């Protein structure tokens, strides 16, 4: 499938906050209550459309446990977007946000777009973090914020797409040098019409994982 841009995402946050479920909901549109725990890093991808342009999201889903940090950290590099996830029913996952941000600031590129997600908002009765707290934290740290539920799919699509739209806007504003892949953005083959207008419009094959 051809794409105009490929954006690389990383999903981070404490273990058990629902990172893999968010990804599964986004890529497969389903919720799997019994899901094998993530070890190391896993991977998903989906095409979306922004500004009528096909954009491929390549999403790296990381393990939340502290002992895997040395591995997951290496995935920050070259990510254009990050979803930082906490669980609204577990206060400690919110309390750890600062350390996740610190990690991201240290290992990601400065222009990485970070979306803060308060997951499991379907479990309002067990809520331990208010929406306002989430909003405030996001505001204080310059993040985009949403509460979402991987279970009901509420705001899942929106979270991924809004992040992409923000990145896209940054590209339009010239924040990124898109030819430099360390920003986590790749220009697709065949997605962007060349100045010659010489292509016949049919899509190129193979996608973007080749050189």
């Amino acid at each position, binding site marked *: 499938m051809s794409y105009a841009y490929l954006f690389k995402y990383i999903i981070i946050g404490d*273990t*058990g906050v629902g990172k893999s479920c968010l990804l599964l909901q986004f890529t497969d549109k389903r919720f799997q209550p*019994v*899901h*094998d*725990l*993530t*070890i*190391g*890093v*896993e991977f998903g991808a989906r095409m979306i459309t922004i500004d009528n342009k096909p954009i491929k999201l390549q999403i790296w889903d990381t*393990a939340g*446990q*502290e*002992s*895997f940090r*040395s*591995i997951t950290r*290496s*995935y920050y590099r*070259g990510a254009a977007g990050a979803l930082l996830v906490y669980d609204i029913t577990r206060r400690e996952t919110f309390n750890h946000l600062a350390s996740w941000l610190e990690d991201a600031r240290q290992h990601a590129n400065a222009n990485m777009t970070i979306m803060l997600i308060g997951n499991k908002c379907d479990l309002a009765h067990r809520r331990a973090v208010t929406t306002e707290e989430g909003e405030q934290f996001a505001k204080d740290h310059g993040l985009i914020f949403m509460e979402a539920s991987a279970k009901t799919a509420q705001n899942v699509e929106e979270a991924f797409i809004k992040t992409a739209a923000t990145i896209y806007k940054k590209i339009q504003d010239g924040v990124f040098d*898109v*030819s430099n892949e360390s920003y986590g953005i790749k*220009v697709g*083959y*065949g997605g*962007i*019409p*060349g*100045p*010659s*207008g*010489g*292509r*016949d419009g*049919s899509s*190129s*094959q*193979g*996608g973007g*994982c*080749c*050189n």
Partner: protein
Amino acid sequence: MQEPELHDLSDDADYAASQQQGSASMMRCDSGKRSSSSEPEGAEIVYLKDNVTIHPTQFASERISGRLKLIKQGSSLFMTWIPYKGQTTNARLSEKDRKLYTIRPVSFADVRSIRRHTPALGWQYMIVVLSSGLAFPPLYFYNGGVREFLATVKQHVFLVRSAEDANVFLVNDFENPLQRTLSSLELPRAVSIASVPSTPVSVRGSASRENEERTDVGVHDENSSTSRYNGRQRQKVHDPARDLSIHVLEKFSLVTKFARETTSQLFRETHSNGFDAFERRNTNQSVLDYNHKVDEDEEVPLKSPVAPDPLELERFQVLYQDHLMPTSTIVKQKAPYRKHNHDDEAATNVGTFELIDIKEFDKLSLVWGKPRQPPLGLEEWATFLDSEGRVVDSKALKKRIFYGGIEHKLRREVWAILLGYHTYESTYAEREYLRSIKKTEYETIKNQWQSISPEQAKRFTKFRERKGLIDKDVVRTDRSLSFYEGDDNPNVNLLRDILLTYSFYNFDLGYCQGMSDLLSPILFVMEEESESFWCFVALMERLGPNFNRDQNGMHTQLFALSKLVELLDIPLHNYFKQNDCLNYFFCFRWILIQFKRLGSWNYLFIHFPLCQHLFRVHVPIIM
């Protein structure tokens, strides 16, 4: 730029023009400081096109032009596209970019299809898609010539127009995937598509490494107007930084040769000796409610023309110590994991992987050149024991299990020994005695955390954290298996209790994700809590370093793996290098939980030192 709808190229003016330009462009090249090129023996350039260009970005100034070539060697056809040197003034396009896009000799055995775009207006271009599913970026023919290219290809390889898209041409599209693989293996001594890496690594001075089957094809230097053949002249660069001794490398060379030969042999084997084993498998198969996670037929049947005694290779293990985890299963993938299409094929130095259909695989009757044996059963097991229950010849036992597996009902007894909970020298009585002592000991440790009151727990953060983590993870471990499925499954609670007890038994290591994956099959087989715990303890004696907080054990193994691939499969290594994955983090899970989620297990318990298997396990999976 329009071309007539004919395939006759005799009057192709573009071609003539490009020939001329070709020589002109050669002059332009600066002096080559790179390694001199080498064209494989008997190689002949059957097609050459200049000003074939890649558009990495939308900016016209950032195009990379180069020369496209088809090279015929023996019955194989290769394609290269080498960007011109120093051609662009654009600073943003570094030499690195050009290197990145360079298409080093790629065999048409690895090409799946070619899509052509020959619009009435504008430039023609084509996209070459590899069997792996990867595609090279569109190659723009500024001077035309796509049809000529295709016509040339057609002369040398089996090319058919796709039924679905008239602009797509399928290469070697035999209906049967196996046939396809065979055809790619028929290549006369497959030429490696490796370029000489910037830091030469593959070739050491070891004589045994001199492998006549391989010829490295270097990057074609634009400076050389005629292709030169370097023969078997090999770089003999000694890198003092290298931590592996020459001795080890010599061993590697044997492995390389062996691996390659077995891989080729594998496919032939499929046709010849297959059926017996398939039948036997069916008759011997015990009921496995563990969803094939533990299956006595896990070992992989491979025929080797060389068939070295696996024990012989223990010497290698000694040299390489425990950096390599013992693994014995291989590429064999159980159907649910391996229902891929050809997207996952990849050609490497040792052949094309991933085409191996599990059905074909199961038919194989040989394991490491020896007949596959039925799983070890009760009667035979007794022959390995002396009158008091000691294992007389542990090596023979391991070997036996390696070649046949164990019947399920026997696993409980044998695993406890293989895992190291009981020693081979122990008698029936000693084992029984140990079981009872260990049961008490287990209860004691378990009681340590069970007796923690809620009040105490409030002031015991570490405990709460660990317990919380374990609680969260056991409900995310193998829940799709009937043994662990459903709410309030007692087996899930057992997993939790054992892990929590382990975190008290080994407080320094504690609990780390991945442990539950390792414990799960043990509990399934051992059934009993204390026994499972002690077997797990024994396993963690071996695998514990992998779970260290600093991940040292993992890094060591990933490093070892990277070195293996570097030595065994340069094209693959280069690919990883190019894609910045030399840290091999993508193998992290496979190694940490020993390929468990891929359905391979028995090897865990056979500490059978076979580095080839590591290679065979890892490399195909990596693909």
